[in-house]
Each structure stands twice: as C-alpha cells, then as structure tokens.
C-alpha cells in the first residue's frame, strides 16, 4: 500500500492518494497524486493563479508598472510589500532606473466596482493604463492582469493592451491568469511563461552580446539569491544576458533569444519558457540546481564545461568551500540526526533533501509540495529514504497529524503554517522567502544551516512548559 489515508482524512478519503510513504520496493510510478484541485473546505496553503503570475514571475522586474484589473483586493494583495524581491536600479545599458525598488513600492489597480461588473471594465482599464503611463513615465512597460472578476465578466485584456501599446508607444502586456484558473498558483507560472514568450521574447536586441551569454531562468532573486549566483558567473567570465525575472528589466525578457544557453533554476515555474525558446530560437537549456554545496558545485562545473570554463568554475568552488567548510562542520555537529520536514512550494523540497542530509546530517522524515507536479514528486521520491512521508498539498489538519506521527524537530515551510507549527512546539523556518537569506549557493546554504540551527536551538523550546518544581541546572 504505497498511499496512506491519514486519520484526519477519514471524511475526505480522496486525500489518500496524495499521501505516499516511500518504499523502494514499489514500482517507480508510485508517488502522490498532484496538481489536482484542493478539496473544498480545506485550509490549504495554496494560492491562486494571479498570485502565480504577478507574485512569482513578473513582480520581480525592476522597471515595469503593473495594472491589476480587479476590485481593490487583488491589487492590495498583489503589491510588492508581500515579496522579498530586491532589485538593483542598474540597467543593462548602464543607466540607473530612477525609482529604487520600484517593484516593491508601487502597484496600480482598476478598483472595479459594482457598475464595472455589470457594464464591463474595459474602458476603465484603458483609462487606468493611461494614468499608469502618466504617473510612472519611468516605467519601461506596463503589464496588466486579469483576475477572477474580469475573467468572469469576460473583459478582453489582450485587445485593450494591443490598443494601449500602440497609443503609448511602449509594451503593454496582458496576463490572463484569473485567480480561479488551474488548481494552484502553478497555472499562473504557466501563463506567465507563455505570455512572456509569445509577446516579448524576440522583440528586442541586447545592447551587446558576448560568447558567454546566458539566460538565467526561474531565478527571482528572493532575498538576494540572484546576487549570489551573479558573483559566481562573473568570476567565471560568464555573462547573464537575461534574468527571468529576478532583478531583471523588461527588455531583458525581450532579448532572451540572443543567449547562448539557458539555465533553468526553478524548474517548476519556468521550464516552459526555456523549452519554448529552445524550440523557436535554438537556444539550448539545461536544468540547474544551485542549492546545497554539492549541487551548486556540480552545476557550476556543468555550466563551465559548456563554455570551456571548467577551471574558472573550480576556482569559484574551491574559494567558497574553503570559506564555508568550518561552518558546515559546526552546523553538522549540531544538527546531526535531527528530524526535518521540508514543505516547500515544490522544487525546494527536492533541492534541499539531499544537501540537508549530506551536509547537515539531518534525517528527512517528511517532504511535501503545494503546487508541485509529477516530475517534481519523482525527484522528491528519489531523494527520500524509505519510510519518508511525501504529501501533496497538505492542509493544516494533516500537518498536525504528521507532526504527531513523524515528530519532525523542524519544518521548513511557509509563513502561513509557521506559527501553527510553533503552537505545536515545533520550530519552523520560512523556506519560500527565507528568514536570513539568501539560501542559494555555498554561502546561502550556510545561511540556511544557521537559520535551522538557531530555530532548533532557540532556548524557547526547552522553556515551553512551566516546571512546578525547581528544575535541575539547565543543559
């Protein structure tokens, strides 16, 4: 029986097939079902498609004005204050974008009201796009977003954007991923990929190119992740021509066809666009993994090899490993044998499983994903030991049960469940946006190790319950 019906799921037996206990004797195809709609009435950690496109993909761009075509709520929720996507105002041509962290500061909405719902909101959208262009003349493009409301009332965003694009003389792009589309935010990633590919890629030329130009796809610069990788590439003599989309500008997306190679970092949210670019423009792509020292090293070497820069890659690796090894040793000595549950959006659950085991000596007792697909669960499964529970889209009740049964000593998860774990007496570190990141690369892995270490060794856990009798000396 590869699948498992948790006790709390007795009233929703459909959940059984989303919960899988790793058993290497079972056939290869056994894994949790995924990418299916959440059962109504759950407290899901999942978001919506709009969150997938604006929150994950486009919100990281430094020079784009975003117009959310929605009642005020989606605009409020879609604003940059929810994401750790820092940007550097430097543009590829050497100029400086005049508003620092523009993407974190400003969001525009059409503020739809009842009459818009009745009579349609397309004229209002036009008006607001014009206002956006006027309010932020600095912005190099305007992106607009369908939402549940505009999806349901049937506003044609593409038509509006086409007209506005001509009128304003700058790219105005429609992203049609209303909240209800698809079972998870993953649908929004998908829409984002296709839209950017079909509307933007190939429409502009870079100011200059080199023989070592890459696209770094699926890297959003969460808490400065990209800036870690950027240094490695720079030292290797490799030029990041376009980011998709961390710390990137609009134009970078338009000239992605000019790179020599695409690297796909977040394979859940961004493989689509790399594939399409390969198909149409012949830019090959490789899937990369820079989480954890070993993967990071291997993948730098792979990239190095591709460009005949293996030695440079090795130099970067040696430099960083020398620096972090003592710290790794310290954290391993402290974390060896501790049980961990990695509950990321998707890829990080398999990215981190092995490094956390290898470099920190921790025991993975549970893995889960919110919006992961089959390919991701396959990797999760491959990287799990027998007996590990792998669960798709866990809801809060299931989380309680897993804590009770698998006794993780720490959970890497999201902020929404973090405080529930705390109330159950289990520390939790935010793995989506990090606590004291970046978490990528060599230094980043140490940052994560430190966050895990300080979460587990937070003295609060030992002091949780009042002792009626004077305890012996602590420790």
């Amino acid at each position: 029986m590869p699948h498992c019906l948790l006790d709390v799921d007795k009233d929703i037996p459909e959940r059984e097939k989303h919960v899988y206990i790793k058993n290497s004797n079972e056939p290869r195809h056994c894994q949790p079902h995924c990418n299916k709609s959440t059962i109504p009435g759950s407290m899901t950690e999942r978001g919506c498609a709009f969150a997938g496109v604006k929150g994950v993909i486009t919100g990281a761009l430094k020079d784009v004005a975003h117009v959310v075509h929605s009642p005020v709520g989606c605009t409020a929720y879609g604003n940059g204050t929810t994401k750790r996507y820092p940007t550097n105002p430097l543009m590829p041509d050497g100029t400086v974008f005049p508003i620092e962290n523009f993407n974190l500061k400003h969001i525009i909405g059409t503020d739809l009201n009842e009459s818009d719902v009745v009579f349609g909101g397309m004229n209002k959208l036009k008006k607001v796009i014009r206002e956006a262009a006027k309010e932020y003349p600095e912005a190099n493009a305007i992106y607009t977003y369908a939402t549940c409301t505009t999806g349901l009332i049937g506003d044609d965003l593409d038509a509006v954007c086409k007209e506005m694009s001509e009128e304003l003389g700058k790219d105005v792009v429609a992203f049609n991923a209303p909240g209800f589309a698809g079972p998870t935010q993953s649908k929004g990633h998908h829409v984002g990929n296709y839209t950017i590919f079909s509307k933007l890629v190939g429409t502009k030329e870079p100011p200059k190119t080199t023989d070592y130009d890459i696209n770094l796809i699926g890297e959003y610069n969460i808490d400065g992740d990209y800036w870690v990788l950027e240094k490695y590439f720079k030292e290797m003599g490799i030029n990041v021509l376009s980011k998709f989309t961390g710390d990137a500008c609009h134009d970078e997306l338009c000239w992605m066809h000019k790179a020599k190679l695409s690297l796909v970092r977040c394979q859940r949210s961004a493989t689509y666009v790399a594939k399409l670019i390969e198909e149409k423009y012949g830019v090959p792509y490789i899937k990369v993994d820079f989480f954890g020292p070993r993967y990071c090293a291997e993948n730098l070497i792979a990239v190095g090899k591709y460009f005949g820069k293996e030695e440079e890659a090795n130099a970067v690796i040696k430099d960083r490993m020398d620096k972090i090894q003592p710290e790794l040793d310290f954290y391993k000595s402290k974390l060896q044998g501790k049980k961990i549950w990695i509950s990321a959006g998707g890829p990080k659950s398999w990215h981190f499983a092995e490094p956390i085991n290898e470099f920190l000596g921790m025991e993975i007792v549970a893995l889960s994903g919110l919006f992961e697909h089959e390919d991701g669960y396959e990797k999760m499964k491959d990287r799990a030991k027998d007996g590990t529970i792998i669960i798709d889209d866990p809801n809060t009740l299931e989380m309680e049960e897993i804590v009770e049964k698998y006794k993780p000593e720490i959970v890497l998860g999201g902020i929404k469940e973090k405080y529930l774990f705390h109330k159950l007496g289990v520390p939790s570190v935010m793995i989506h946006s990090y606590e004291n990141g970046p978490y990528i690369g060599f230094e980043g892995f140490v940052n994560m190790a430190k966050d895990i270490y300080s979460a587990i060794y937070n003295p609060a856990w030992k002091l949780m319950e009042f002792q009626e009798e004077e305890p012996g000396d602590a420790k």
Partner: protein
Amino acid sequence: MSNLNVINKNRTAVINPLVTCQPLGAMFAVSGIKRGLPLVHGSQGCSTFVRYGFARHFREPADIAVTSLHEDAAVFGGRKNLISGIGNLAARFKPDVMGVVTTCSSEIIGDDVGGFIKMAKDEIVKKMGVTAAEKIKIVQINTPSFVEQHYKGYDNAIKAIVDTLAEPKDEQNEKINIVPGIVNPGDIREIKHLLSLMKTEGIMLTDTSDPFDSPLRPSKAEKNPYYQKGGTPLEEIKDSANSLGTISLCSYANTGAQSLERKYKIPSKVGGTPIGVQNTDEFVRTVKKFTGNEVSDDLLDERGLLIDAMADLSSRYLFGRKVAIYGDPALTAGLARFVTELGMIPSVVCVGVKNPEFVKEMEKVAKESEDDVDVLLGQDLRALDVYIKENPVDIMIGNSDGRLMAKDHKIPLYRVGYPVYDRVGTARRPIVGYNGGLNLIDGITNTILDKYYEVQDWKLQQ
C-alpha cells in the same frame, strides 16, 4: 479653530491601496468567535492572501478555509464546492460557528448561497446526526469584493453574526455589546480592562484578542484540530440580544448594532474609537450611561497618568509638529484627535474610504486643531506620497505599507494599525484607552527624540 480641506482622488486608478476588499473584514470578524472558522467561497487566493497577511501581522496561525473555486465553478456555479466545503469543514473541524464568506467570484456567478447552506446542513445532519450537526452554526456573510472595502465586509459580518445568532431572553444580562472594529489584540484587551474598571462585562462582537495573540503551551492547546485560545463564545453572542446596549467603536461598523436595536430594543451608540483622552472619556461616559455605574477613581487615576505624561512631554517635544496619518478611518480619526490633544498638527489624514461619518469625525478634529487639516478622502498611499513631497511633515503614523515611502522622504514612521510586519509587538500594545494613550505618547515622543533630538544629543541630558 481651523479648516478641514477634503481632497478627493483625481484619477481613476487606485495606486498602492490603503484598503482591500470586503472578505478580509468578514474573515477577521469570524476569527473572533470561539471555535469559529471562516469558510471563503471563492478562489484560493481569497483565503491565502488573507491568511498570509494575518500571519505576518499577528505572527499567529490564521485558520481560514476555502471552497477552492476553479473553472468548472465559473461555468457551472459553486454549488458543489460550497456544499462539500461546508460538509468537509464541519466533519473535520466541528466548529461552533462557521462563517460562509462570499467573494467576487461567488457573487458574480450568482450562487444561491443561502440555499446551498440549507442543503449543506441537510447533508451534515445525514452524516453526523442531528445533535452534532445542530451544534455547528452557519452564518452566511455576503461580501462582494467589488462593493466598498474590507471595513464594509467587517460590518456585514458583524451584522450577519448577530442577525443569525443573537437570541432574546426574558431578562437583561447587565452586559454591554462592543463592536471593536478591526483593531489589535492589545486594543480589545484594553477595552475589556476599561470595562472592568467600570465594573461592567462586555460582549465583544467579536473578540479577536486571544485568537490573534495566543499562548504557546502545547501541553494545554486544543488540538486535532488545533484551535487558538479564546474568541467570543457562541453563548455570549446569543446573549447579545439581551444586553444593556451596544457600542460600536468604529463608525464603519454600526449596522449590527442598529439591527440589535431594531429587533431587540438594545440601545446603540457609535463612538469614535477610544483613542486619546476625549474619545476615551466619551466611551467611559457611554458605559456609565448604559450601566448606571460610577466612574471609579482607579480609572480616573489611569486617566491622570496619561494627562501627566501629556503635561510632561507634549509641549516640550511634540507641540506644533506636523503629522501625517493614514489607514483605517476609525483609527486615523481617533489618532488625529489625539495628536491634536498632544498639541501636534494632524496636517494630513489619508484614508481609502469615503464614509461621511469619517468626515464628520475629522470636522470635529479640525475644530479643535489650531491649524488646517487636509483629508485625502477615498485615496491611496500614492496620493499621500505625492502630497508629502509637496507638504513635508515631521512624523508619519500608520501601518507598515508606508514604510518605504517614509524612508524615501526621510520622515520617521510610527507604526500603528494593520498591517505592521516590519516591527514587532504592535499587535499586543494597545493604542486605545488611557493606557493606549500612554503607549502612543511614549512611542511618538521617542520617535521624535530619535530623529530630531539625537543629532544634538546634549539636549537629551535632562
């Protein structure tokens, strides 16, 4: 006495909104019921964004379920999702109260939410039996996202809660109903403290204090499912039909109180949020009027401590300094009045709503202020940004969403309201009541000292 200048929005777009849509207010209200769970009838974003927001502000779990509407519902309606959602939530969580919160999707699709709830109830009875099923009260809360803002959603929820749950008895209960508004746990606790000094019990409609600030005690926690401590028990909500009166502490959420008045003759009063001296005095007087209880010396001594701090600090550090205030209309109106009581100038108050009650409250403030007061009405943070560039102030008071703006303008920001995610402790530190006034004057003064006195540090030697 000075002028109130109301400045309306001169564009169609909303930019960096100060408000969100109705459902949040309803989710907030339902979270204040003991073993109460919101069930959002909409897309997952509708619950997830709010859970995210509550989690980062309160640093607490926020248990909100969703019916996960998708394309099929868009085409065929949300009946299946809502009925199975209610059923699943009932069976798995056995809440005392379930608040069904609609969204833009469910409202546009035109779901017969009332009808679906009835069907769902029948199914629950079938599945769980009559006794168990009847223990679960279901409140229908219509909160179309494209009408007004989250304050209205809060109002709609409170009204739906009392309309559905309040039950008259033959006897009065000697309590006072309080509609606290969208405030922090610390504020609700301070309201209760004021009531206790007035020897009065309150029925909070609803009480989010413990649910959003709960102890970490795994050995004592209610688990499987985990429920946060506290919230107003169903029995008390029922009893709200028998109280001495209802006080709404925010002008935007009075329809529940009116409904109780209409149906059960419970007198109602909309007070300003009791921020600062006069607003708290007013609250105390209202409690006195409803209960007949005297104002205790202990309470007046607490008041005297606030006056003492004002005497010691206001003229010396705060007088004449310009303040920009933004956020919740009830809080901002109260804050504007309090900073006026501190001798400061509420130069500009920016809200995302157009409530006439708010304007009325601000007219009172302008009357008491020595200087002109600008109100950005129905506006957004972008409007405030542009305004401040032209009209600098000494200090900003508002939520964390203005933090980068404040940084750009090099104006210190004193954080209050919702959301505050970049500093800690705000949620448990009251700003209402006399004690809240002390917190505010201390916080504002220290912010001023940091920014304007530390540069000439010798000035701080006595």
